[in-house]
């Protein structure tokens, strides 16, 4: 009976079948699905590399793989996870799908460019995977010179080219979002009526557009240095390898916000929906996204405290790094204040939101530890840093990503996921994550350096705990892959607004029709106004 209901109506999924209708689609929702499939594969691949790393570290001796192979494993784990999963994660999937719907538009401003950006990610990923199959790359995901330009005998060129191309995918997504938010809002949808998810993706777009070209040109220079033997970073000529680090981190610090700002946008939606209250201090949360985007460009030097940067530069960068924590803290406090006296429901997406708030807070606070010059000198290049940024990237972004996937799954597919299994896997992920990465804070503080495949026996207990945690975490990640696929066929039919949420995306049937709205809505209510929840749309 349920399948019949879904098939009677034309929606974006059954509007055209066959490979061609997908590979040439200009529908932002289908492109989002293409991205979703693509980055899920990359996530699995990066996860395989991570598993091998954790397996190697079960014993103190470097016995599972050679040190050369180990170098390649952590490099490829970093490259795949950062550039091919985390950077596109929330914006390219949920941003692509819901940003136009949330502002009442029929599509993004440039649908062809949107499709192009997916093909660029595929092309970039192709180069990266070619490099891995041909023999891998061992420079670390940071490509520090002169090792990457002169000494490494691995596939640096193909990998750099892959990241370069994928970078343009990211730029075009950001450009599309910015223009769409400026020019495509429905009548009455003023800036301060937009959901905070839109604000977050807009601010992310600014970083993508301003930051990504800098790493692109940096990789071009590395490429030219390897291929044409020009010398920009070559110390033998009087060049400065630290210049590379400056250019690299000028992008790669703001890139952290490309990964985490859209995740924060997801959390704003979840916290509001599942406590049935408007986000406390909406304008502050909105502007804090913009503030993070701006200040985030001024802190890159905290990655160079021990690279021979001047002490005064170190002081300024340290101060600014503390400064950029303020807008992040504003968000956390406002989410917490939103919960106060809310009618909270503990559906799976909300569990992920709670997970995000707790883990991101730990990641953010330990970020302050490493932004302090004295402590950073002690913990530079140790597992403390690894644990810190995994709390932000995995505890933050991946948690929000999964929360968002569960939250919008009924809208994207028309079906509910199985709540019991989802809660169980959320629990696995939370427990597994902490068991994996909390011991790494201690390991790092005790002096375990990153990027070593052998270590003194004293560290073994903590490493085994971490690997055990990674196993639990892996189960937590595999479960959703199974039950979400199952729900596509057997999940209960969701209806248009199963959560009683307020965004315009819920004012469409599930799954939405190709052009989203039969009639462009006129917006009269504030964001998160629960007196005006979109009614169940007649699905016939």
């Amino acid at each position, binding site marked *: 009976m349920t399948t019949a209901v879904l098939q009677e109506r034309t929606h974006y999924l059954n509007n055209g079948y066959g490979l061609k209708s997908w590979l040439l689609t200009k529908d932002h929702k289908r492109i989002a699905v293409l991205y979703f499939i693509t980055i899920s594969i990359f996530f699995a691949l990066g996860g395989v590399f991570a598993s091998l790393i954790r397996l190697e570290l079960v014993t103190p001796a470097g016995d599972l793989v050679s040190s050369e192979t180990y170098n390649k494993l952590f490099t490829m784990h970093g490259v795949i996870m950062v550039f091919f999963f985390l950077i596109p994660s929330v914006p390219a999937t949920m941003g692509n799908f819901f940003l136009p719907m949330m502002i009442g538009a029929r599509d993004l401003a440039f649908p062809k460019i949107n499709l192009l950006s997916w093909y660029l990610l595929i092309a970039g990923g192709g180069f990266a995977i070619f490099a891995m199959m041909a023999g891998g790359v061992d420079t670390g995901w940071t490509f520090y010179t002169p090792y990457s330009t002169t000494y490494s005998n691995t596939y640096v060129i193909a990998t750099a080219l892959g990241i370069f191309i994928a970078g343009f995918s990211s730029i075009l997504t950001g*450009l599309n979002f910015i223009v769409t938010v400026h020019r495509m809002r429905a009548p009455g949808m003023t800036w301060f009526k937009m959901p905070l998810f839109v604000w977050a993706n807009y601010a992310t777009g600014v970083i993508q557009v301003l930051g990504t*070209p800098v790493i692109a*040109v940096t990789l071009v220079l590395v490429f030219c240095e390897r291929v044409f033997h020009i010398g920009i970073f070559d110390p033998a*000529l009087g060049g400065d390898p630290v210049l590379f680090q400056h250019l690299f981190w000028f992008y790669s610090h703001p890139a952290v916000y490309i990964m985490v700002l859209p995740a924060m946008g997801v959390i704003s939606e979840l916290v509001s929906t599942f406590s049935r209250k408007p986000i406390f201090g909406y304008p502050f949360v909105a502007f804090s996204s913009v503030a993070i985007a701006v200040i985030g460009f001024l802190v890159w030097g905290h990655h160079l405290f021990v690279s021979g940067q001047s002490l005064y530069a170190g002081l300024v960068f340290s101060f600014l790094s503390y400064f950029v924590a303020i807008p992040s803290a504003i968000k956390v406090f406002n989410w917490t204040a939103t919960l106060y006296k809310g009618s909270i429901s503990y559906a799976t997406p909300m569990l992920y939101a709670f997970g995000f708030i707790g883990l991101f807070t730990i990641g953010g606070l330990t970020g302050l530890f490493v932004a302090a010059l004295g402590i950073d000198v002690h913990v530079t290049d140790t597992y403390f840093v690894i644990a810190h940024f995994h709390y932000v990237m995995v505890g933050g972004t991946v948690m929000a990503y999964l929360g968002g996937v569960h939250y919008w799954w009924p809208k994207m597919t028309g079906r509910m996921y199985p709540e019991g299994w989802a809660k169980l896997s959320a629990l696995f992920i939370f427990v597994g994550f902490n068991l994996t990465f909390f011991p790494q804070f201690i390991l790092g503080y005790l002096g375990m350096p990153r990027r070593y495949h052998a270590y003194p026996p004293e560290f073994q207990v903590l490493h085994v705990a971490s690997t055990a945690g990674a196993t639990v975490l892996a189960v937590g990640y595999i479960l959703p892959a199974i039950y979400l696929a199952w729900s596509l066929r057997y999940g209960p039919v969701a209806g248009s607004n199963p959560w009683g949420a307020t965004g315009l995306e819920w004012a469409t049937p599930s799954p939405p029709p190709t052009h989203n709205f039969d009639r462009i809505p006129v917006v009269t209510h504030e964001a998160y106004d629960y007196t005006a929840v979109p009614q169940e749309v007649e699905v016939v």
Partner: protein
Amino acid sequence: MSSEAHAHAEETLALREQFDTAEQQKDASTLGMWIFLITEIMFFGGMFAAYTIYRSAYPTVFAVASSSLNVTIGAINTCVLLLSSFTMVMAVRAGQMGKRNMIIIFLILTLIFGCIFLGVKAYEWNEKYVEHHMPGQAAFHLEGTPLQGPAKIFFSLYFAMTGLHALHMVVGVGILLTLIVQTRAKKFSAEYFTPIDISGLYWHFVDVIWIFLFPLLYLIDRHLPK
């Protein structure tokens, strides 16, 4: 948006389905191009940053290396490029007035000037190759300074920056060719010439980059005491 205006817009031009009005579509395209150009500024910005740092580290070597470049040829090429910008403006103007023949004439003129620039640039690069001023050459040598390393850095920047600029010119030439074909196919009218308009923005941007590159690369030694 009234359906009447919608229907009217659809008659005169390809109004894509995500937009309500022709004006909205044009605004979106123009904003998109401006944001793309900001991206380009950051792209070149990385190289300008490297240039700034090395020039302040090795001022005299950079001056000596700069004086080995041919200022006359560089100046002529600058004029050629400025002329091409002028003809591009005229093409956009012709687009506003809907005069297809004039659009084609001015686009072809722009194309010719662009190709002259690229030809002269290729001649200059070859000259550098012959003089052993290419950083990859084993026989690299620059007269007048004992510091061959920083001299190589200057020429690395010279080739990287002018090369990247030339690459943008080549893309521009491709865009001009496409526009010429589209104009011949009567795609544009006084109501709809957005592609010509935003391609003009791109072309001028590439010119402006050269306006910075020319003094930074060719004229460094002018203000040093002889």
